[in-house]
């Protein structure tokens, strides 16, 4: 067996394998966007989070600025406590509002942040007070039918 030729083939095989791994890492996947070290967490409370899930994106002006880190239930106020992990590069004013939105009609749900006008910025473990719950389709349809029924009712 010719040793050098064999080594060459194995070398090519290893290089191709590593190249495939790199292709998967760089072109196919993306690292978990926000690392714990360069991020800060803020808490927002919602009456209803709809179908929001952990790791859902947090977007501001359509740009992903963080991820949903944790979703809990507050048994005293009966609200959902959503922890948002935001990238340290982006700072938001204290009176920023958070809303749960849906991308497309049936797409995944995400948290949308709308910056306010305060000169104080949100810090780690701060709370976002202005929140808007998820739109629940059933409630919307219910309201629509109720409204129609009112319209048609004889005065």
């Amino acid at each position, binding site marked *: 067996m010719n040793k050098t030729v064999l080594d060459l*083939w194995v070398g090519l*095989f*290893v290089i191709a394998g590593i190249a495939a791994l790199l292709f*998967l890492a760089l072109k196919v996947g*993306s690292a*978990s966007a926000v690392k714990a070290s360069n991020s800060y967490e803020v808490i927002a409370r919602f009456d209803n989070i709809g179908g929001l899930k952990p790791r859902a994106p947090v977007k501001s002006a359509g740009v992903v600025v963080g991820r949903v880190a944790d979703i809990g239930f507050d048994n005293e106020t009966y609200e959902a406590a959503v922890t948002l992990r935001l990238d340290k590069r982006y700072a938001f004013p204290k009176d920023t509002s958070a809303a749960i939105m849906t991308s497309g009609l049936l797409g995944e749900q995400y948290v949308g942040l709308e910056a306010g006008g305060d000169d104080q910025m949100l810090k780690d473990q701060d709370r976002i007070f202005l929140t808007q719950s998820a739109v629940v389709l059933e409630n919307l349809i219910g309201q629509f039918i109720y409204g129609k029924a009112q319209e048609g009712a004889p005065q």
Partner: protein
Amino acid sequence: MLRQSIENLGNRTIQGVWRIGFAARFFLAVLLHSGTAFRRFGLTIREMYFTGVLSLIIILVSGLFVGMVLGLQGYETLQRFGSESTLGTLVALSLVRELGPVVAALLFASRAGSAITAEIGLMKATEQLSAMEMMAVDPIARVVAPRFWAGVISMPLLAALFSAMGIFGGYLVGVQLIGVDEGAFWSQMKSSVDFEQDIMNGVIKSVVFGIAITAIALFEGYDAPPTAEGVSGATTRTVVTSSLVVLALDFVLTAFMFRGIS
């Protein structure tokens, strides 16, 4: 009659337990002697040529075709919901998480695992292993350990190549043939495939499969009865056992890894 069958059952159970014990001792011996596989790395490289490089063709071609079929079938279903732009996500996630490691492992078991068993079984049948022992060469260190590490190193590389090739196949069919938007294909894929959660877990899976397949193949070869019939039976058992073990391990690993994700 009844007594005979009970005796048979007991005998087979004892044989099975004995084999498991021997397999564990064998696996331990391979790990203990694996220093040789790294000190004389030339031996391992030689085995990597036989297990890895020679498996390349079947792995690459199957990967390409699996990806192309995923592209076709995925498009058929997704376009009913008007979400054919997520085709990239479907192809990439199913390949990286499941099909890449598992199908590559099944192919590896039948291509390389059977060859390892046949080779070692025949070495035993022709008393080459005994001859080595005579010359004070430990056959586990000289023959078995390099093959083990070659398999363990080759398997993740083969699985990665399979996945990459499959994604390329999905791209060929989805974007070039059917006409899904190229930008949407790649960006949707990139935004929903996570490096740690999906790709690294796929790599971990393929490493585990590599260990399982090579260990089974080596053990079956080493344990094969030294006859032509014995070697052929051992080769068959390698393919059947390692395929079943890969599928079972895949279920267990998936249950552990992807429980937290929606």
